């Protein structure tokens, strides 16, 4: 596998996004990172993957959890434990239950798109912001992506990109390296963006 080939494929991915979602650079990382995660697993039905992170088409998981499960979720993850130490010590289940619906899909079930969407907060360990902003930002991302989602060309281009990444052997890169490569690709100013200033 050539890292350069992966980088140029990702750069083309940024061009695709710049074409279809020119004013929404905040979505570039979550979409490209999801594409990489799914490419590793050789899953290419991106359209539903991206659009249905809240509406899974198959029978849902049971999301009503007992208090013990919720406490365990916060205790078992070192970073979450640190941030919610006060609530855990005080046994403030109301606060933990309020944060759980946002943090469980991101940190527990590890939805790739949501992890991309909250990458900065995850990197900074800022779980409280995720808990507070989850509904608004997830809904906004879904609204923002809608115009591009209506164009078949967008999904075809993304699927082609995913297949190319899979063929290039992206599964040989670690998750951290994939994230780094995507960040670098997104940081480089695409031509269209440069023109519009």
């Amino acid at each position, binding site marked *: 596998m050539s890292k350069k080939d992966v980088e140029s494929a990702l750069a083309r991915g940024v061009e695709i996004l710049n074409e279809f979602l020119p004013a929404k650079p905040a979505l570039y990382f979550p979409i490209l990172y999801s594409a990489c995660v799914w490419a590793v697993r050789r*899953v290419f039905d991106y359209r539903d*993957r991206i659009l249905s992170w809240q509406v899974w*088409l*198959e029978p*849902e998981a049971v999301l009503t959890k007992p208090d013990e*499960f919720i406490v365990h979720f916060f205790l078992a993850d070192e970073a979450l434990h640190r941030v919610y130490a006060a609530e855990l010590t005080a046994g403030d289940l109301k606060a933990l239950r309020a944060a759980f619906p946002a943090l469980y899909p991101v940190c*527990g079930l590890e939805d790739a798109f949501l992890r991309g969407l909250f990458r900065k907060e995850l990197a900074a360990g800022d779980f409280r912001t995720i808990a507070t902003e989850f509904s608004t930002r997830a809904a906004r991302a879904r609204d923002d992506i809608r115009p591009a989602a209506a164009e078949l060309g967008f999904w075809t281009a993304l699927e082609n990109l995913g297949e190319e990444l899979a063929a290039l052997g992206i599964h040989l890169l670690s998750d951290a390296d994939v994230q780094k490569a995507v960040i670098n690709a997104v940081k480089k100013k695409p031509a269209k963006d440069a023109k519009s200033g």
Partner: protein
Amino acid sequence: MTKRPRKLGGVGILAVSAWALLLDAACLTHLRNAKAAYAAAQELAAHYQTEQATAAYKRALAEAALETQRTPSAQAFMLKGLAEANLGLWRDAETSFVKAAGLGFGEGEAWASDVSLLGLAVSFEELGFQEPSLRVYENLLGKSSFKPVRLTAAQRYADLILARARALADAELDRTLSDLVRTIERLEASDFACGYYHYLHSQAEGHRGRYGRSYDEAVMARELGLPSEKALRDNDLQVVFCCDKLAASLGAGEREAFAAAHAVWAKKWGWKDPRTPGWKTE
């Protein structure tokens, strides 16, 4: 000046015949492709390769839809409805089953009615009317012979009961959870190889604090297969949760024996270690 229709020469007739044959072959191919994709999806779902199964259901749907446009038949609409139901497209599935029934598919009407009831119950639930939606789910669990409907009704029923149970006092809570477990056990008895029912059972036992039983059911669910990635991951996290709870409650000897047995499962499932599923980032 009007143009006279041109007569078809020998070559033209041949071309038309060839075109008709190709069209016919294409129709056959769509039906065959739809069947093959649907069978593949079921096979993949049974081996909990959930994304691939979803993709295969989508392929089956696309092929069946083409077939219904070109040669409407009971079989084509039934396949289309089945694929739609497995993708949770309840309204579309209902329409397809009604059409399949109109073209002679015997069970089409019953399936369409089940799918329609499920859609109604989901709408009730979304509008906050829990009582009528619970009644519909319960009714579907008792009578529907259509598996996708039974699975969705079971999950929604269990989730509603569990959410309700949280507000109950101890004695009533225990009775409610016992009733739920009995309902799930009846579902298991009707289809023991369905991993999803064992997953629901595991979740309910987790609410009762019966971690040993919850662990056993979660292991069974994983072994038998789950219909979605989300359920699979949630089930894995339930396994980890139960392991930790059991480790804290068992005596030293039992704990070691349990840890050794669990390590075998974790290895079989390709986990990074006994507490870290393979899909989890470090």
